[in-house]
């Protein structure tokens, strides 16, 4: 196909070829082509088949407003070929076809449309209910928009940026650029988002005069240069705005160019003020076969020629409702398109200048006429026109029908920002009745058509936005308003929706194959609200996000219902406004996780790491995931465990004790010097949320630990529960400041004694004791005698930067005692043998202090501090029907351990297994479970049901706890 290569408006470089493949053949496009324009240039007219009826679909809008040109590009389905710039080597495939787009084996579906009225699957496939799952699979096989393998991995680089702006302008047309320039003149930082790869909007391709013989496209380029030369304006082209959220948070995504480091990037802009200058799209004209390849919108045909150098056909008919149609007809005629006729919906009101030119060029103009049917087997070959009343008709042979009912504003950004729209009788647009705070609309979207008025409205909006940011703009704003008022205002718009046809094959939504007949069927079934009709017929629920039916659907419903006020509202739209890859939203997707100070050493020692909350922790130190050797070594020698993830806090000040009393259930005034105090925190419902130890380091100075999971919430928790008291205390989160090593096992004391001069004998440093001393006279440690794993053990808290050194010192000193690492899984088994609970493992949201047997911690006598949860503790202490924590052993000691989380059943669910393991120490399967109180008695048989176990059950018996060292002698040795 020959292309224009000398037009000044071109955005392609025909001298620079790009090769791509389609249907197994290699084609050539030009640099600057989209995939769609390149295919069109190579004679492709049918790009895809429609969702339901497999009707041929072709180029229609050029801006991706419907799924007509959704194709598979480089393995990625549903790529909008109209918006995708051609790259060398691209592999393009048609989708939703069995065969080829030209010969689709499922093309017969079009003849079955009579069997598929609106909501047919609701009527035929839901009763009996068993039909639906079967039918669903078959429907999905036939319909759909591309296929993606479950293991498909996106290639490419997906990035993200979070820029800040004073003013964000959505739309880089003349109004948007004018707004941006006005705001930037006031010293503000401005961002422009433009969906196309260049600025200019609807000036950009037009040769009509702007002013003083300067064509519109030249004006667009002049404005774009001004923008580029303004340092405070940052322009993102090929960037689709997709979301608007509270406080002017605007989201968008940008498609990367040849020189960008990304393929796509997500953009999140926080702006003080927003200008929406997104212009208009064309409102489709509804007539029979209105989506047949060969039928396209005015802008599509015009831009195809002016931007991409392609005449869309040889012989054309126009059926339009706006002066842009007349202008396009004249321009395309001048470029060589034969025009049989221009049918204008409007009986009057055309621009006399354009009419005069048409007369001069002998382009026939039929006022008050409209296309009623597009003919042709697969592509267009003939058009029927008729009067608006359908009283007379004419037929014209042609291969191009340029059709448009009028304009409709792109109000998506406003709607996302919660602007309410109402029908405007003059423009025929749905316009905002009130704009959100610090959001302004400008340009064509308000109905303006005059070039200077559009720019003036942009300037007004830009200055209003500047005022939002605190700039003093009064004088300039008055001037801009005067300038705007001196120009023509919004033009009267066409309200025609559908030609005088029955509507059997008149498509109101291309994406979902929804016809006018379908809408009528829905209305006749009693659906009178557009939003419900949309749901019932699927109109506007496809990838085009309602771009095609968005305006016509409510208008048609209003007209069909003879609603004189057109009170129907446009249907809801939601982000993303434009289909966006999940990969783009994921962005760089940095895996932000925490490492303990001992991470590298544990990795070197063969640690197998697992993600636990925000932390990466060593779970095992061998491939034996039962951890038998690790456990045995702790029970018989001595082990090292990295407990650095524990929450650690300093709280001090005159009222620090009061704060502790408020959140801990125990009487914290009873903390003895040199001793630790174990206690727990509950929420207001008496449910257990945390446990840990508290140490008094000095007057009004405490150090306490929390569980790993609660560390991030502890400061806020304490502040929240003391917020009205005006207490004077301070807190610092030291979780990362200190690492923690648990030195545990019968030889732990011997190891510790080798590396410190402090007296660590049982008398000097007894169980539950707390000491501060130095290791090797250098490393300061805070040492606690605890026994979480059921052995003599020391928890050594040391500054994180010293932790690797401390670990190596301990390993060195412990080598003669066979010291070795143990990981999280070994710790889990060791502590379970002693029945020491982990909050979150042996408790859940409903579990109270008493349920897990920790009721002894609660001091009910401390009334002055209003302990959080104390009131509820009184209520739940003896409450019947609660789940209680019990220990259990399987009946058969050779049985395998039930899986964590398995449920305990009889005729009903009676509880669940919190943890169960085979204990090497005890050589039996033991576990902890939360069970119905009625099953909590020692000796009760528990029936355990595991996922997909069928009729097989595991059985266990409630057993006395602790399982290991019940007299706690080993802790105190």
């Amino acid at each position: 196909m020959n292309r224009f290569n000398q037009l000044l408006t071109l955005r392609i470089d025909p001298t620079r070829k790009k090769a791509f493949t389609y249907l197994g053949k290699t084609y050539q496009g030009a640099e600057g082509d989209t995939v769609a324009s390149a295919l069109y240039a190579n004679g492709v007219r049918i790009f895809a088949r429609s969702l339901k009826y497999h009707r041929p679909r072709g180029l229609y809008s050029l801006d991706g407003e419907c799924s007509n040109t959704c194709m598979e590009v480089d393995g990625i389905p549903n790529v909008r070929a109209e918006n995708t710039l051609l790259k060398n080597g691209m592999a393009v495939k048609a989708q939703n076809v069995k065969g080829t787009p030209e010969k689709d084996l499922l093309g017969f579906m079009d003849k079955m449309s009579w069997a598929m009225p609106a909501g047919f699957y609701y009527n035929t496939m839901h009763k009996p209910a068993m039909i639906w799952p079967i039918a669903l699979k078959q429907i999905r096989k036939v319909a759909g928009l591309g296929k993606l393998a479950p293991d498909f991995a996106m290639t490419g680089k997906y990035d993200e940026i979070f820029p800040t702006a004073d003013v964000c302008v959505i739309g880089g047309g003349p109004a948007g650029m004018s707004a941006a320039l006005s705001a930037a003149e006031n010293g503000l930082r401005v961002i422009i988002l433009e969906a196309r790869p260049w600025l200019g909007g609807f000036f950009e391709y037009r040769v009509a005069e702007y002013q003083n013989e300067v064509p519109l496209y030249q004006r667009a380029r002049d404005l774009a240069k001004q923008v580029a030369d303004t340092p405070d304006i940052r322009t993102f082209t090929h960037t689709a705005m997709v979301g608007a959220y509270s406080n002017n948070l605007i989201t968008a995504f940008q498609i990367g160019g040849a020189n960008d480091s990304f393929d796509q990037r997500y953009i999140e802009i926080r702006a003080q003020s927003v200008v929406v200058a997104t212009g208009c799209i064309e409102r489709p004209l509804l007539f029979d076969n209105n989506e047949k390849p060969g039928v396209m919108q005015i802008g599509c045909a015009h831009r195809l020629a002016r931007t991409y150098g392609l005449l869309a056909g040889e012989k054309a008919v126009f059926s339009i409702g706006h002066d842009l149609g007349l202008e396009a007809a004249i321009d395309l005629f001048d470029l060589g398109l034969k025009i049989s006729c221009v049918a204008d919906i409007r009986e009057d009101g055309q621009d006399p200048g354009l009419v005069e030119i048409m007369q001069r060029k002998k382009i026939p103009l039929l006022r008050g006429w409209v296309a009623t049917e597009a003919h042709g087997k697969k592509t267009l070959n003939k058009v029927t026109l008729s009067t608006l009343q359908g009283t007379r008709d004419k037929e014209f042979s042609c291969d191009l029908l340029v059709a448009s009912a009028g304009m409709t504003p792109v109000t998506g950004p406003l709607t996302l920002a919660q602007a309410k729209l109402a029908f405007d009788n003059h423009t025929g647009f749905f316009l905002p009745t009130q704009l959100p705070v610090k959001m302004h609309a400008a340009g064509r979207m308000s109905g303006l058509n005059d070039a200077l008025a559009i720019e003036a409205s942009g300037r007004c909006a830009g200055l209003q936005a500047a005022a939002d940011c605190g700039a003093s703009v009064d004088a300039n704003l008055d001037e801009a308003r005067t300038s705007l008022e001196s120009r023509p205002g919004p033009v009267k718009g066409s309200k025609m929706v559908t030609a005088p046809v029955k509507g059997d094959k008149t498509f109101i939504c291309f994406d979902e194959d929804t016809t006018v007949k379908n809408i009528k069927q829905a209305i006749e079934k009693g659906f009178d609200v557009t939003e419900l009709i949309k749901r019932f017929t699927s109109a506007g629920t496809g990838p085009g996000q309602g771009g095609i039916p968005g305006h016509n659907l409510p208008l048609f419903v209003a007209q069909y219902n003879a609603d004189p006020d057109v009170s129907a509202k446009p249907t809801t739209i939601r982000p993303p406004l434009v289909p966006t890859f999940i990969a783009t939203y994921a962005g760089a997707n940095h895996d932000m996780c925490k490492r303990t100070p001992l991470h590298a050493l544990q990795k070197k020692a063969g640690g197998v790491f697992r993600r636990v909350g925000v932390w990466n922790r060593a779970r095992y130190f061998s491939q034996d995931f039962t951890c038998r050797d690790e456990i045995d070594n702790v029970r018989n020698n001595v082990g090292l465990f990295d407990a650095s993830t524990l929450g650690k806090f300093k709280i001090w000040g005159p009222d620090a004790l009061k704060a502790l009393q408020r959140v801990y259930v125990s009487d914290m005034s009873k903390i003895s010097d040199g001793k630790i105090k174990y206690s727990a925190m509950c929420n207001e419902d008496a449910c257990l949320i945390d446990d840990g130890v508290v140490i008094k380091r000095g007057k009004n100075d405490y150090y306490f630990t929390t569980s790993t999971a609660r560390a991030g919430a502890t400061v806020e928790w304490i502040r929240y529960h003391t917020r009205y008291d005006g207490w004077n205390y301070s807190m610092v989160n030291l979780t990362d400041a200190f690492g923690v090593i648990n030195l545990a096992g019968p030889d732990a004391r011997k190891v510790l004694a080798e590396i410190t001069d402090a007296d660590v004998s049982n008398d000097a440093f007894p169980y539950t004791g707390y000491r501060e001393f130095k290791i090797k006279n250098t490393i300061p440690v805070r040492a606690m005698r605890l026994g979480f794993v059921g052995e003599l053990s020391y928890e050594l808290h040391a500054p994180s930067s010293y932790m690797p050194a401390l670990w190596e010192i301990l390993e060195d000193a412990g080598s003669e005692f066979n010291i070795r690492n143990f990981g999280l899984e070994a710790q889990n088994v060791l502590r379970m043998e002693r029945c020491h609970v982990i909050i979150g493992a042996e408790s859940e949201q409903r579990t109270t202090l008493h349920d897990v047997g920790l009721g002894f911690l609660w001091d009910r006598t401390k009334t002055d501090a209003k302990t959080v949860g104390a009131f509820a503790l009184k209520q739940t202490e003896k409450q019947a029907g609660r789940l209680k924590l019990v220990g259990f052993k399987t009946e058969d000691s050779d049985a395998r351990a039930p899986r964590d989380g398995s449920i305990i059943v009889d005729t009903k669910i009676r509880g669940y297994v919190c943890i169960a393991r085979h204990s090497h120490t005890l050589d039996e399967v033991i576990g902890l479970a939360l069970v119905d109180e009625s099953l909590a008695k020692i000796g009760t048989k528990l029936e355990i049901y595991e996922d997909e176990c069928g009729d097989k059950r595991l059985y266990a018996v409630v057993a006395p706890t602790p399982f290991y060292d019940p007299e706690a002698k080993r802790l105190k040795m």
Partner: protein
Amino acid sequence: MENIKRVSPVVFKARPVKTEIRDNWAVTLEYDAEGPGPYLIDLSHRTRWDVQDGNLDEITPWEVAIPETPGKSIMEKGFLINRMNRTQASVWHLTGEQPDAPDGPAYTETTDATMFVALIGRKTYAIAEKLTSLDLANPAQKTPFLLQGPIAHVPCQVVTLAQSGEHCDILFTCSRGYAQSMVGAILEAGEEFGLRPAGEAAFSKI
């Protein structure tokens, strides 16, 4: 003890060419092939304190007045002091010899609680905006100023030390445990701008 060293949470995949031991810290002064910048510099060995008191205005760390307004910072006598809120400030020691620990219950040393890095040189704002929505180059703010918020989704204290055009010097701290993830994210974000690790000497030049 001679062999006991303090270890920074930040590890760069670059070869140190000039190092020194300072207060048990192994400090890298220069890495191989640092290039022209921008630079990412580990300052985690630099001592930092949290200052908290109901009467913060009466506290003058090393005789420097804490800024009155939250979000304001002051650089004086080698200390960068950042007012965080009504009762809290952070103090980062940036230049000079290791100072003595201050007296008083208001101070808590937090050197080991956080990682501390500097992002300096050209295009640093372009790098930073790939990681955070914080307005680090806000022309309305007088440098140095403090922002508290997420970088790469991790809560941070960020101070813009200086800015001029596309040149911006940023210091920030976050929980020590995130150090390697954070450094990885920053270096990846800065790859297209030539960001490289640099030793402390590069920071001393600014």
